[in-house]
């Protein structure tokens, strides 16, 4: 099956119109020396049935979350996803559309982006948001580049409480632009504020903290705000989890200049790490808006005065500004942004808060019980949201593999990030029975 539907007769008719005998003739503009003179060695040609069987077979070599109770988080969270989302985004008009270049035939996509921007602004407490970036990691990197352009400085203070993978992506993006990264260490599980203060000076472009941070802990945002405000040009970038903002005070109220993060928790399936979406919002000021990377939708009116939506402020973008663009962003994660929009609309004011609350409470119920165990200790018992760090004298690898025998994924082994301990995340999906069972098994170790 190749989805080609011209018949032999039609092909001949077309060739005649073109004025050639064979299709190969059209390819004569490719010099012989670079022509591939053999068939591609790519297996395939499967029927739909064969393909489904084959992929089903491959899937059975995986052990998916269907088989487990999962306490994995660390940037990708197993929240409940309302069933209507997949139905709605599967409507082909959303699903198979291109970037909304012709606004008049793309009002659906454009209005969804406008609603998405509005709700991201509301959640983060900021004035303006873009239409999405590629993921939380690259969005953090884009936010840092944006801050460097605004402040015209090169020094970036990165909290060690920022997700290690985000820190790595930030380096990948920042080093070619000669950014100078200084890592600010931790005190317990939150950013060491003395160290932050010592490193802050007028040459700093941005301070980057995560809220709640990689360990689930809530940074001392009030103090960070105070420190940052001593220097006029320094920007505060807050990387955040949008679910936590159902309950927590938005970063905008703590002096954030740019807020960014991973939008996956807002209704996106886990999909082994992607496609997810990066969100980015900032202050509603000219000098910020001018430097936003990626697309932005705006409301306007048509010639008859009806409300309509367009992509706007496009002179920031690569297709117009080319080498002087704010970013190379073109394709973003529009469909994932649509997922998050529908999620935020469905859960709404009460639902988002309830998800955050239930995740928080269940996580604390579990953490308290684990902390009581002899062989385990919760490092940030007094300060976390729905993710916490557990230490143990037992070999972590064995603890996790023993739990896996019992069909539990008992958290992320921090050895992956050259650190000891386990990072556990609890969402509203976990039942009391699952939490109690985990504690029981850990107690027996």
């Amino acid at each position, binding site marked *: 099956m*190749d989805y*080609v539907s011209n018949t032999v007769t039609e092909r001949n008719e077309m060739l005649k*119109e*073109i004025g050639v005998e064979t299709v190969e003739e*059209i390819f004569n*503009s490719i*010099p012989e020396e*670079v*022509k*591939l003179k053999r068939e*591609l060695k790519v297996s395939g*040609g499967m029927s739909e049935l064969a393909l*489904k069987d084959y992929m089903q077979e491959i*899937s059975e070599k*995986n052990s*998916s*979350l269907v088989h487990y109770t999962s306490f994995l988080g660390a940037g990708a969270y197993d929240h409940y996803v309302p069933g*209507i989302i*997949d139905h709605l985004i599967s409507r082909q008009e959303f*699903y198979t559309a*291109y970037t*909304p270049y012709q606004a*008049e035939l793309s009002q*659906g996509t454009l*209005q969804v982006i*406008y609603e998405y921007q*509005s709700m991201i602004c509301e*959640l983060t407490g900021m004035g303006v948001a873009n239409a*999405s970036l*590629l993921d939380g990691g690259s969005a953090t990197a884009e936010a840092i580049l944006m801050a460097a352009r605004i402040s015209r400085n090169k020094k970036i203070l990165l909290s060690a409480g920022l997700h290690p*993978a985000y820190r790595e992506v930030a380096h*990948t993006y920042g080093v*070619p632009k000669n950014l100078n990264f200084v890592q600010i260490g931790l005190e317990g599980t939150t950013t060491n504020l003395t160290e932050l203060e010592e490193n802050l000076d007028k040459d700093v472009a941005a301070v980057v903290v995560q809220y709640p941070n990689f360990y689930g802990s*809530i940074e001392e945002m009030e103090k960070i705000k105070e420190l940052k405000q001593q220097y006029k040009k320094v920007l505060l970038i807050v990387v955040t989890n949008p679910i936590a903002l159902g309950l927590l005070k*938005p970063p905008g109220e703590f002096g954030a200049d740019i807020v960014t993060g991973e939008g996956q928790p807002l209704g996106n399936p*886990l999909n*082994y790490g*992607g*496609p997810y979406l990066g969100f980015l919002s900032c202050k509603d000021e000219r000098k910020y808006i001018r430097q936003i990377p990626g697309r932005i939708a*705006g409301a*306007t*009116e*048509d010639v008859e005065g009806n409300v309509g939506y367009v992509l*706007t402020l496009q002179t920031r973008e*690569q297709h117009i500004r080319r*080498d002087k663009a704010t970013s*190379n962003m073109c*394709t*973003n994660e529009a*469909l994932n942004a649509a997922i998050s929009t*529908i999620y935020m*609309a*469905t*859960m709404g004011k*009460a*639902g988002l808060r309830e998800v955050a609350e239930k995740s928080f409470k269940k996580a*604390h*119920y579990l953490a308290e019980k684990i902390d009581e165990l002899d062989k385990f200790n919760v490092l940030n018992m007094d*300060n976390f949201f729905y993710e916490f760090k557990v230490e143990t004298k037992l070999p972590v690898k064995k603890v996790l593999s023993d739990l896996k025998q019992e069909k539990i994924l008992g958290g992320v082994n921090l050895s*992956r990030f050259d650190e000891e301990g386990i990072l556990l995340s609890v969402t509203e999906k976990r039942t009391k029975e699952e939490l109690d069972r985990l504690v029981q098994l850990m107690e027996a170790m």
Partner: protein
Amino acid sequence: MAERLIIDYSSPGRKGYSLPPLEIPEVDMGDYIKESYFRDELKLPEVSEVDVVRHYTALSELNYGVDSGIYPLGSCTMKYNPKRNEDIARIEGLSQLHPYQDEEDLQGSFEFLYELKRDLAEISGMDEMTLQPASGAHGELTGLLIIREYFEDKGIEKNKVIVPDSAHGTNPASAVMAGFDIVEIESNKDGMVDIDELKEAVDDKVAALMLTNPNTLGIFEKDIKEIADIIHDAGGLLYYDGANLNAIMGYARPGDMDFDVLHLNLHKTFSTPHGGGGPGSGTVGVKEFLRPYLPRPVLKKDDKNYYWDYDRPKSIGKVHAFYGNYGVLVKAFSYIKTLGGKGLTRTTENAVLNANYMKAKLKEEFSLPYQENSLHEFVLSGVKQKEKGASTLNMAKRLLDYGQYAPTIYFPLVVKEAMMIEPTETENIDTLNRFIETLQKISEEVENNPELVKNAPHNTSVRKLDEVKAARQPDLRW
């Protein structure tokens, strides 16, 4: 008809969700979080499930997708997105995977990802691929960072990237993000790289030339070997922008044209849906000598198992927090396994046949600025119509009135009043004829009733939108 905003459906206390019960004893959150860290209000919609379903269904009805009809956007390869790929991507054993699960739980996915890498390397003539970049531009950035890292590692100072004036805007933007300065070169009268101009631009500070071949005019750069030699002789590398791979798959391979690095847009050539502007996937391929610089981690295989290799001291680092747009990769793999090598080649043939048929039918009515043979796409100019009072933009909007999507317009920049048309192979002669007839009819309208075209669109849900107002008085949220 306009659809109001979801927030306007709100009624205090209305809910559209249900969550699992708390079950556990009540926890006082104030015991753990300071009072000043709780938010006061959250102004999100308060709507029912039915409200949500109706609202977003209504919005979808204001859109146009590939399933609605022809989508001839040049350089965008809007081919049919097979439904079976969607079914495959939703198999729970493939999708319900957490990025930090143990590798032993992921051997099935690794198996197909590994084969996908191998297939893409074979199709493009490269030695190794990374699946991490999440879009075409992301792939460009990754590829250029690899080039940068390579020269740094070798202790060779390079700071320039050459980009033809017909290139996609992402090329110069990506090169600047990767820390390079841009040297733009003009195309020659046939729409190809001007060899003399290239020679002039090349020196020992040039790290790379970025090229798409066929170029954005759909024309194959026949001097590609000479171009490659010029760059390589000066110690630079050749970067291939794979947005146009649909033109040559099975007929020629960038690797055999001596390109050193490339990216492929899986959301174009390999049929995964665009979703209104993403997700995409911009996998990057390199020649052997660039392997050490690929982003971490690299998917490998030993005697028994597949695994991620993180021990990559010369790697550029990560460009994505996890492994890229995995969900897109599943669909691209399903597509490749459906077609196989022969099918992919037939795809190319028909994409080229369709484009050339349209060109033959339309070149009299419109102007054809470049006469060279073109492959999967071609560029017309609306200068004749513009003289009669209707611009390319006007004609594009008029196409919408006829329920068909418009081509890419005003790109490439080297053509005045450009209309860049790429029908793809999944359209047949009937849909092509319908589109051709519509364009001809619009050209007649320009002749007889230019005002009708100038004021288009007339039949869409909204009419011509005021972009000046949108930019002067930005209204970016409710």
